[in-house]
């Protein structure tokens, strides 16, 4: 019950233990960044292997079976284990500071969410070493996934189930944080756009993940416990999986892209040095996109045979999403218009994002026309489209966000020069890789194809695409070099490193004190820090006197709860195999570990501790070193 733990210097083991038990949103953000970054590299290597295999016709760099595993793991890893955790990293690092909160609403559950995601992702990727990865595509359509031999699909279903629980917890935590923990004066319509998009994305998580949970349970039961949900011979129906997957899967697209929109909505006003154009219409558009995102899932299933009426309704609903998205695009452009622009690396990503994402949006509207979609379906046109929205929207957002928020997370500034090199290579590589894939698709190249024959007009297009992928890879490597150089040099920057920070997170000293705000700030309008700066102040006006601050205790329990499910998953997976009698005991032991840890958490009081007023006053000169 003291702050001694925070002031001592730690050894390596102490630091590891600190991160294993941390409940501090800023450290959890770093965990998400590291784990998500690791999986991003893994997914990137898988992408490179796909492009090497497809660089020339009749290639046999990987076998057809391995190719299926690679494409499945590339999609699954990038969506669930790279993009989402990386966005969660920024949400954790930035959102509580943006609303002037000392912490998130549920620090313990925040840590639990991370460890569930981590163990789920670990379980999924262990499939590479334990008999083969899943090979039914990231959508894992049931008839195909039931027929898949080995344990690959079991790894997929169980791994995603575990990490999905973690995401759900994270979503609820963010929702409650934003509703209950805002600083005095931080009304809803003064919240920064990144907070708003986190809010809407979290609401989407809350309602989109349970259908996936149910779908995955049914897949688990069908494959491992003998049920017949998708088995037509038992009276089952394989279309049920498609519906649940896409009822989850389409909102998932918005769960990913809305926070990326949020990051860009922070970058544009900062470097155009102008307040965000049309703030209230931006909020409205965000909420509308979230709402419409739930009514368009069947546009992934136009060729399934739901009939012309269903297809027509879903086609129109899909096209309607272009309207709020268009509102956002114009607002961003008008934010730049007439601004005093600084082309920093984050701003370059933001500016490049607009045309890139619009191209993905336009092909999206093309596919929304159901009759035309019969032509595009399952072709490389689709591959080009969703890479344009995901790389052109989300990955550019993540890279831009990484440069933008690096000083906030680590107190250091990434090199602008190397950042610009990464940007140029990555942007050129991205368009080189995916633009030509539209035409490959229209010329008839099917999605997920292992190889192709020469002389069918696909040779040069595929080669160009593979060369582009190499550019992206080099760009990412230079980014990693940039990270290493920056962290080794470790030149600490002070408060408001971009000089034009507008929102509360930039008003804090650097590095951010572990209690965030010594005194909660008084928010007097949109862009509160900008308002104070315009009045010649360097800090926020406090809304309260210095007083005791209540802090949560670290806990190892989240790790144990997640570990239990990780162990149980092995039992569930192997119990159907011949001669593996140990599997059911392992399943039971894992569940006991999980529920036992939950019981322990429930019955053991954890009141946290207080930082006393005197300590806070003592620290005032030292910038709150952790």
């Amino acid at each position: 019950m003291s702050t001694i733990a925070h002031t001592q210097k730690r050894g390596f083991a102490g630091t590891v233990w600190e991160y294993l038990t941390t409940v501090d949103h800023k450290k959890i953000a770093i965990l998400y960044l590291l784990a998500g970054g690791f999986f991003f590299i893994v997914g990137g290597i898988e992408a490179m292997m796909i492009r090497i295999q497809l660089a020339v016709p009749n290639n046999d760099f990987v076998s057809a079976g391995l190719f299926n595993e690679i494409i499945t793991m590339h999609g699954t890893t990038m969506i669930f284990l790279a993009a989402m955790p990386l966005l969660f990293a920024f949400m954790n690092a930035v959102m509580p500071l943006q609303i002037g909160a000392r912490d998130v609403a549920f620090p313990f559950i925040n840590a639990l969410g991370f460890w569930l995601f981590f163990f789920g992702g670990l379980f999924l990727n262990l499939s590479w070493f334990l008999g083969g990865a899943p090979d039914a595509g990231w959508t894992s359509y049931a008839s195909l996934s039931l027929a898949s031999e080995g344990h690959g699909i079991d790894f997929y279903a169980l791994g995603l189930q575990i990490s999905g629980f973690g995401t759900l917890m994270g979503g609820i935590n963010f929702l409650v944080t934003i509703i209950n923990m805002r600083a005095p004066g931080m009304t809803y319509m003064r919240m920064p756009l990144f907070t708003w998009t986190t809010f809407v994305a979290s609401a989407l998580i809350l309602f989109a993940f349970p259908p996936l949970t149910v779908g995955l349970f049914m897949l688990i039961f069908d494959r491992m416990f003998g049920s017949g949900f998708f088995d037509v011979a038992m009276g089952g129906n394989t279309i049920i999986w498609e519906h649940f997957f896409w009822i989850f899967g389409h909102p998932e697209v918005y769960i990913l892209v809305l926070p990326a929109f949020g990051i860009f909505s922070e970058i544009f006003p900062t470097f155009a040095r102008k307040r965000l154009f049309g703030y209230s219409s931006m909020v409205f558009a965000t909420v509308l996109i979230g709402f419409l995102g739930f009514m368009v899932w069947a546009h992934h299933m136009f060729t399934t045979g739901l009939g012309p009426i269903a297809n027509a309704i879903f086609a129109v609903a899909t096209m309607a999403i272009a309207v709020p998205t268009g509102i956002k695009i114009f607002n961003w452009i008008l934010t730049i218009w007439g601004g005093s622009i600084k082309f920093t690396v984050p701003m370059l990503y933001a500016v490049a994002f607009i045309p890139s994402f619009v191209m993905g949006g336009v092909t999206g509207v093309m596919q929304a026309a159901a009759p035309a979609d019969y032509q595009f379906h399952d072709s490389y046109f689709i591959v080009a489209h969703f890479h344009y929205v995901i790389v052109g929207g989300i990955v550019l957002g993540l890279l831009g966000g990484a440069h933008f928020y690096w000083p906030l997370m680590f107190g250091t500034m990434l090199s602008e020069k190397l950042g610009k090199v990464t940007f140029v290579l990555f942007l050129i590589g991205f368009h080189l890789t995916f633009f030509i894939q539209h035409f490959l698709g229209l010329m008839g190249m099917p999605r997920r194809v292992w190889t192709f024959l020469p002389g069918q007009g696909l040779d040069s297009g595929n080669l160009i695409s593979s060369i582009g992928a190499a550019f992206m890879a080099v760009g990412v490597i230079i980014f990693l070099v940039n990270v290493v150089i920056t962290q080794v040099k470790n030149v600490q920057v002070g408060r408001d490193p971009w000089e034009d920070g507008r929102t509360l997170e930039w008003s804090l000293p650097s590095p951010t004190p572990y209690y965030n705000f010594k005194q909660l700030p008084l928010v007097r309008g949109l862009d509160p820090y900008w308002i104070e700066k315009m009045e010649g102040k360097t800090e926020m006006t406090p809304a309260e006197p210095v007083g005791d601050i209540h802090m949560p205790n670290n806990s190892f329990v989240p790790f144990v709860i997640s570990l239990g499910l990780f162990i149980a998953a092995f039992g569930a997976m192997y119990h159907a195999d011949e001669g593996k009698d140990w599997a059911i005991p392992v399943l039971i032991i894992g569940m006991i570990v999980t529920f036992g840890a939950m019981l322990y958490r429930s019955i053991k009081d954890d009141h946290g501790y207080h930082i006393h007023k005197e300590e806070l006053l003592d620290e005032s000169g030292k910038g709150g070193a952790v």
Partner: protein
Amino acid sequence: MAAEQKFTPQTWPESPEQATLEGKNKFLGFWFFLGGETVLFASLFATYLALKDSVPSDTHAKAADLFELPLVFLMTMLLLTSSLTSVFAMYHMKNYNFKKMQQWLFITVALGLGFLGCEIYEFNHYYHEFEHKFTSSAFGSAFYTLVGFHGGHVVFGLSWIIALMIRNAKRGLTLYNAPKFYLASLYWHFIDVVWVFIFTVVYLMGMVG
């Protein structure tokens, strides 16, 4: 510290479950969680309706063959009553009457266990009398998954309430455990509401074909 403070019925706040920031957060977070649970059960209901009576051959039992109203009516009454008794428990919680709260929670748990016993008997009956199994047909899979998920929630809810009763038996009510009792009862109501839908959609609609 506010969370450990001792109270009298006079000083006990009106909404003890929301008197602290932790309590407020838990209250709101749990409602969101129940929102997610609602979607979970909605998905299970949709699956059940899609696969109802979907069996590989006519030798398999269908919904109209299986269900008998008296037993299900008894289960419904047990669970509905237990929801009422948990309301009484929360009434006493708000009035800082720990002993009466524990008594009503005890009755709630007893009724819940009665429900669970009936459900086990019911599943056993279907399994042996009708060969209606989790692995025999898509209908069986969907039925046991939907009703079984609800049963699993009952088990979890009972364990939760029992754990809270034992843990706090000696120390009485504080602002630290009041939100916990309140949320457990909220969870119990949710289970009850889901059962009302199961009773209607699975059993009543199953009886009329």
